[in-house]
């Protein structure tokens, strides 16, 4: 399950959801408009008034302090003790991501994790990239979606081996899913692995899959301020692909504003302006990947 949005709860309709909510268990894309502080630590004001109600009754011990319940009443806390833990919550995913990374490195694979909102053109961009990388770079593709293998079918048109991961209710790929999918992929003559993550600009940012480069797509149709609205995703990008630039004029795309916003949020990311339809910018992207692949080869296996 996702630490960010709570998706992928066991069962189709988790107990406690239907009873307390008239809305779905989570909404993707609700973003980070509010960060809330729980009244500790000075200076965390985000201009948001914390009057939101707690919509579920199970969070607070007080709710269970009725007679007959076995939780200790607040007045008798002597038996309680504090255990310091200080461990990363995603430790398991990080461990598995490192394992993936070792496996990829040992095979000399350059691994790309593609992230973006749904509809920004990941699948078409990947299909065209794979075609243009031949014969120097030979890619295998893992594609994640909640349901259907439509993207896998589209990606197979490129001639590359493709494995579809259907995540069910989970809104992102995890290192473990990639580790399993890669076993089903014939990588013998491959030197690039492309992972198309689930279309979502929030949660996948938190999950390392063992990739070398995180590639975030931003299409010109999405609005120049998207990087400002979803900073964690763009902050984590090694590469930003501005896609669909053939549509720039039609949708009144403000290039200067988009680049300024990207430089603000992702100052270290390499930016490529591309159109998978017309091929514009695809050569520069191809050269960049060839360079990166050469760098991996000389790096050798980890450890």
């Amino acid at each position, binding site marked *: 399950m996702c630490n960010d949005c709570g998706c992928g709860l066991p069962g189709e309709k988790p107990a406690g959801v239907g009873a307390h909510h008239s809305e779905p268990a989570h909404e993707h894309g609700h973003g980070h408009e509010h960060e809330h502080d729980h009244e500790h630590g000075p200076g965390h004001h985000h201009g948001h008034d914390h009057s939101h109600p707690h919509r579920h009754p*199970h969070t607070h011990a007080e709710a269970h302090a009725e007679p007959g319940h076995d939780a200790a009443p607040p007045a008798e806390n002597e038996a309680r003790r504090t255990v310091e833990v200080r461990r990363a919550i995603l430790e398991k995913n990080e461990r598995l991501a490192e394992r993936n990374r070792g496996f990829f490195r040992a095979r000399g694979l350059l691994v790309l994790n593609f992230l973006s909102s749904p509809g920004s053109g990941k699948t078409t961009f990947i299909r065209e990239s794979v075609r243009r990388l031949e014969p120097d770079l030979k890619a295998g593709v893992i594609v994640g979606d909640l349901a259907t293998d439509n993207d896998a079918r589209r990606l197979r048109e490129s001639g590359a081996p493709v494995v579809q991961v259907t995540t069910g209710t989970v809104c992102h790929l995890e290192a473990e899913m990639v580790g399993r999918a890669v076993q089903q992929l014939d990588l013998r003559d491959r030197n690039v692995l492309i992972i198309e993550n689930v279309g979502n600009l929030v949660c996948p940012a938190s999950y390392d899959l063992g990739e070398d480069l995180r590639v975030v797509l931003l299409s010109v149709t999405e609005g120049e301020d998207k990087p400002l609205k979803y900073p964690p995703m763009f902050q984590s990008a090694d590469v930003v692909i501005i896609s669909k630039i053939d549509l720039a004029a039609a949708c009144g795309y403000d290039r200067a504003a988009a680049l300024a916003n990207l430089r*603000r949020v992702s100052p270290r990311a390499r930016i490529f302006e591309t159109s998978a339809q017309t091929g514009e910018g695809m050569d520069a992207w191809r050269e960049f990947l060839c360079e990166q692949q050469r760098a991996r080869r000389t790096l050798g296996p980890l450890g």
Partner: protein
Amino acid sequence: MQSALGLALKQTREAGGGRVHVIRLRIGVLSGVVPDALEFAFGALAPGTPAEGARLVIESVPARFWCEACAREFQSEDLLAECPDCHRASGELRAGREMELASLEID
């Protein structure tokens, strides 16, 4: 939240504890985690476990950035950080992406 709860229950067992009363998490403002969503997920997952009824305390960790040009660290409450001296955008994030189980109160 499932991994946070799993880790909390494991740590409680290892410490010889029975029930979990308080779970303290440290969540960086740039971690991508929405605290509301964590609380909701906790409410759905905790019942039936030793953490049922526990209180979830989420400490927000502000983002700290390093400015290369000025060789200084600065804190930002804004997710889009600019060095207060030279007003350049910072590339190096030093804190703010944590997702950590800080401590537990158990008996």
